[in-house]
């Protein structure tokens, strides 16, 4: 094992960086290109049972500190999307299939079809903050999270990761519930519910009014969430939210994450951010005498 390799629920990754769901993953070819840029794994776009157009434009706002988006889970439906998944799998790095649904049965069904494509794991989107009846609306209480994880666990035989919302009073309780329900890993955090208003027009910019904030602005929240989750569960954690530099990745790892996902950083830095973060991690580990990512995991809890 080289120093950057990590193992999450039995999935071996060449480095601890992953493409986050929702960015450059509508097509298989784009996901392959992200792996060429250095990502150790890719998460697909979140897909549901049926095609869905998502919200009308405008669905993104560019802030200096990040993005607010309200895409609204557009996707072509799981059956059509499996074609793109197959292309992504040609990259040779683990592909994690992200799924959403309006009920535990529906999520379990989408997960089952996703798993049939041979993905390394399934990520459950229990946290999208801008789609009615989906995402965070069915994943905001521990009971819901536990029963959805149980239902999915019973329908697939690959690891399942629960992606949780920070828009709650206790993300640690959600994480414990996911572990109780059989989840093999926690992904934290999804975007923070947010809004932008155009003063000259006197109205919200997003057609959906509300969206989810990502990027540098949310990193400190994400690190805090991972830190709290690490104290609450024994399953591995994947940190997401504003990772843009190797230092950001180190914060998540030392808070307790085994790996990190990046999305908005591609907008601000380009896809080269994956190899930059990995290079920086390698240099830091060498300079500070760490032999593996695992050695650094959670050390901020000492």
């Amino acid at each position: 094992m080289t120093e950057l390799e990590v193992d999450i629920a039995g999935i071996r990754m060449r480095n601890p960086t992953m493409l986050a769901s929702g960015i450059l993953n509508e097509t298989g070819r784009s996901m392959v290109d992200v792996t060429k840029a250095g990502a150790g794994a890719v998460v697909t776009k979140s897909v549901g049972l049926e095609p869905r157009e998502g919200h009308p434009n405008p669905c993104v706002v560019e802030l200096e500190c990040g993005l607010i988006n309200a895409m609204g889970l557009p996707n072509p439906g799981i059956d059509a999307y499996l074609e793109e998944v197959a292309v992504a799998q040609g990259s040779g790095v683990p592909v994690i299939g992200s799924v959403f649904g309006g009920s535990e049965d529906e999520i379990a069904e989408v997960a089952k079809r996703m798993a049939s494509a041979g993905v390394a794991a399934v990520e459950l989107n229990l946290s999208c903050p801008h789609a009615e009846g989906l995402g965070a609306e069915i994943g905001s209480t521990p009971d819901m999270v536990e029963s959805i994880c149980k239902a999915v666990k019973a329908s697939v035989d690959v690891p399942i990761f629960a992606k949780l919302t920070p828009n709650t009073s206790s993300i640690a309780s959600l994480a414990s519930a996911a572990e109780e329900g059989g989840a093999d890993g926690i992904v934290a955090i999804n975007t923070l519910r947010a809004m932008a208003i155009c003063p000259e027009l006197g109205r919200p910019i997003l057609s959906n009014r509300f969206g989810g904030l990502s990027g540098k602005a949310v990193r400190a929240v994400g690190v805090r969430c991972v830190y709290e989750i690490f104290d609450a569960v024994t399953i591995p954690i994947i940190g997401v939210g504003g990772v843009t530099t190797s230092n950001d990745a180190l914060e998540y790892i030392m808070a307790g994450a085994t790996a990190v996902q990046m999305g908005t950083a591609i907008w601000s830095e380009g896809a080269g951010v994956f190899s930059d973060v990995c290079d920086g991690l390698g240099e830091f580990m060498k300079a500070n005498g760490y032999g593996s990512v695992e050695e650094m995991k959670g050390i901020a809890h000492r």
Partner: protein
Amino acid sequence: MPIDSGVRVFVITEQVDETPTIRTVHLDGSMHAQPGQFVMVWVPGKDEFPMSISYPGERFGITYKIVGEGTRHLSIMRPGEKIGVRGPYGKGYSIEGESILVVAGGTGMAALAPMVEQAVASSASVDVVLGARTQSELLFRTRCERAGAAVHITTDDGSDGSKGLATDKAKELLEAGDHDMMYTCGPERMIVGLLELSRTTVVPMQASLERYMKCGIGVCDSCAIDGKHVCVDGPVFSHEVLSKLSDLGRTRLNTSGGRIPID
């Protein structure tokens, strides 16, 4: 003061009918952009969509055809009303060559007109092939002539110029002339035809592509074409890139990200 949302608000100063189906909206501010770059136009409460900048600089304007709810609503907005704009985005035309051929189909001329003006101003000799369904739909003919380009007209119904396709006229001019660069924007099947001409005549080309777009900033993957993104890698692509795009002229993504054939 920089606006921390990316959205600049402009007041509509004028709407000009260019043809029976194409209008230009002029706005009360400047937009400095390369020819071929685009902006995301937000019609408040209706839609936001990508439009190429047909008038960059001080008299900022965009030229549009009514194709959906957003453009239909834009067309009934009056001077004094406000719209939001993000951009300019993407990579425009790189103006090079001493003898250039510009091939425009339909509203494609909206993206090409600033490029024609800039090329003529930099002393290039410019042939423009302007194709439309019928005479009344020819866009920016006078504008190109006034700039100093030689304009060659083709119409589907033969009501003006040669009856037939813009690609046929382009072939004739390429074979007879000494062009060292070709620029185009228009229907994708025309671009595919011109790419083949570019290959056989060994005249390099740059073409502006169109895809359904959501974010406009290279994150959502809606405008992906073989891993390239029309919003940030394009909309203008060189023939080297175009010739490697297996989806060109064949498939595109719909609003839900499903693959559909290009007609």
